[in-house]
């Protein structure tokens, strides 16, 4: 009996190992991205533990990197490493806020357009086309200036503008799933449209929404950094874009204080990279599985 059980268990284990190994092939890069992202996320969540100082504390200004201040101090004497660690918060909050909003709108519009077709589809996709054509960056900059200083609102504006690609993908996927037999079945059973859309179709397109969600976070992070760089960011929060802005406007570049502007720039690039890696490899995998089908 015990032998039998062992055999079954080991068989199961090898099966799983096989499946995992194969999954890993496509996901190794995504996993690297995830790891990178988790690091940043943990830094943001536990900034007060990781940061050596309160980022608002003032020491001697313009210190070069030394033992007490690994990345030196800025023009006010704030510890740059601590600023850097706290700065991850703004990036993540804006990124997630914008992506949540965009994904929500995009998914809803895509689902309705793809499920109901006809006039609904025409109208919703027409709106999508119009939104695609709005010159978005200037609009975001204007509205950011208008609604300052709340970065929450900035995130919401970005979200309200960036749902278009999600909507398109969700729509085409929803149209596919709509034609499958199990949806036919649900319809013939008399379930309501809403029930079919949210209980039957939505769970089946989560895997296409996910990479879009990640990529939206990435673009929102870049835009947040850009808006902060223009000096339109939230002044009560330390952000990476604002650190670069201060380095740019207060002599960091001319005096060659690389430890002031290089780390925040790298942080932006790395966190965006982490998301893009996950997003792209998930999208590529999705395409591969479609081909096998």
């Amino acid at each position: 009996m015990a032998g039998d059980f062992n055999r079954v268990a080991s068989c199961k284990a090898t099966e799983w190992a096989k499946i995992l190994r194969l999954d890993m092939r496509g996901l190794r890069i995504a996993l690297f991205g995830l790891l990178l992202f988790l690091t940043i996320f943990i830094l943001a969540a536990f900034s007060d533990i990781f940061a050596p100082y309160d980022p608002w504390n003032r020491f001697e200004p313009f210190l070069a990197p030394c033992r007490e201040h690994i990345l030196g101090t800025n023009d006010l004497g704030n510890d740059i490493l601590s600023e850097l660690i706290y700065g991850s918060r703004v990036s993540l909050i804006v990124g997630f806020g914008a992506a949540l909003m965009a994904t929500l709108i995009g998914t809803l519009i895509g689902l309705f357009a793809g499920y109901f077709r006809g006039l609904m589809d025409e109208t919703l996709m027409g709106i999508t086309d119009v939104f695609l054509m709005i010159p978005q960056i200037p609009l975001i900059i204007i509205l950011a200036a208008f609604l300052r200083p709340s970065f929450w609102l900035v995130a919401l504006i970005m979200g309200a503008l960036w749902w278009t690609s999600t909507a398109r993908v969700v729509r085409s996927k929803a149209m596919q799933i709509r034609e499958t037999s199990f949806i036919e079945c649900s319809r013939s059973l008399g379930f309501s449209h809403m029930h079919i859309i949210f209980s039957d179709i939505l769970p089946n397109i989560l895997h296409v929404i996910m990479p879009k969600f990640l990529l939206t976070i990435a673009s929102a992070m870049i835009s947040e950094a850009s808006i902060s760089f223009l000096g339109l960011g939230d002044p009560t929060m330390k952000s990476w874009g604002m650190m670069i802005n201060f380095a740019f406007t207060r002599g960091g570049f001319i005096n060659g204080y690389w430890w002031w502007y290089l780390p925040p720039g790298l942080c932006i690039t790395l966190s965006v990279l982490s998301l893009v890696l996950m997003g792209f490899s998930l999208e590529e995998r999705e395409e591969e599985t479609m081909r096998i089908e």
Partner: protein
Amino acid sequence: MTFSGKKAIRYFLAIILIFSLNFAIPRAMPGDPLANLLGEDVMLTEESIAELRAKMGLDLPLHEQFLAYWRDIFSFDLGYSYHLHSPVSAIILSRMKWTLLLAIPSLILGAILGTFLGALAGWKSRDAGQKFETGLVLMIYCTPPYFLSLLFLYALSFKLGLFPLKGFYSTGSALDIAHHLMLPVIVMTLFSLSRNYMIMRGSVIQERGNLYAAYARAKGLYGEEILFRHIFKNAILPIITLLALDFGFILSGALFIEIVFSMNGMGNLIYDALLSRDYPVLQGSFLVITVMVVSANLLADLLYSRIDPRVRWQ
């Protein structure tokens, strides 16, 4: 309704909607537009303030301002900037010229290099050298444009002194302009390239799995022949749409590069107008950019149907 008819209605609605947005947003912002028409240190009487306000039509009720706005658009009058003391259309014309000079070469170079390199990268996605190249391009893709500009400016202009420090030109000779433009164009090309590269790479990876690619191979096509005779044309379709959308991005994205390189183009014009609440300039710029983006989309649609017979024959 025909396909193109539907498209036309969408373009029309887009223009109407965005134009209305242009009117609404600047007026919804706090701050008195009048205050910025003057400089620092200006002492004014109430009466001259009212006089100026009336002259600029700011004392009219909103709906009348809105009607006037549309009237002006249809007569190609973009208003007068009291801030810059010129008709807005003249200002935009003189600035747009420069921004296009920066954007068009970058867009073209980025599109050509991006699609070809991206196509090769997608074709040989397992090759180690290609993976390295893709990683490099991905890093650029993930860096905010202004930061890369800053690094280039610092390293190549500040440190090595290879390029001028600011502006589109100093003396105005063709050579001088080319020298000033080189670095910003390189940076913008890199960005345009990185976006096209990633899309094209994914597109080729997807297309190369199609049966027609296998059949091309079965016909005896070898290596890159398959890519360029068969896959490329199919894979480039998404790029065309993207290029049109990117056109708006690059026009406005030039803002950041123009700020870093201190260039007096549309980007700096919009930024200054924003800070000083120069309504006419803001509105005019958005209007022109919108028209350009919409026309770029229209052009992309036409180009798309040229390349893809399926759209043409629908």
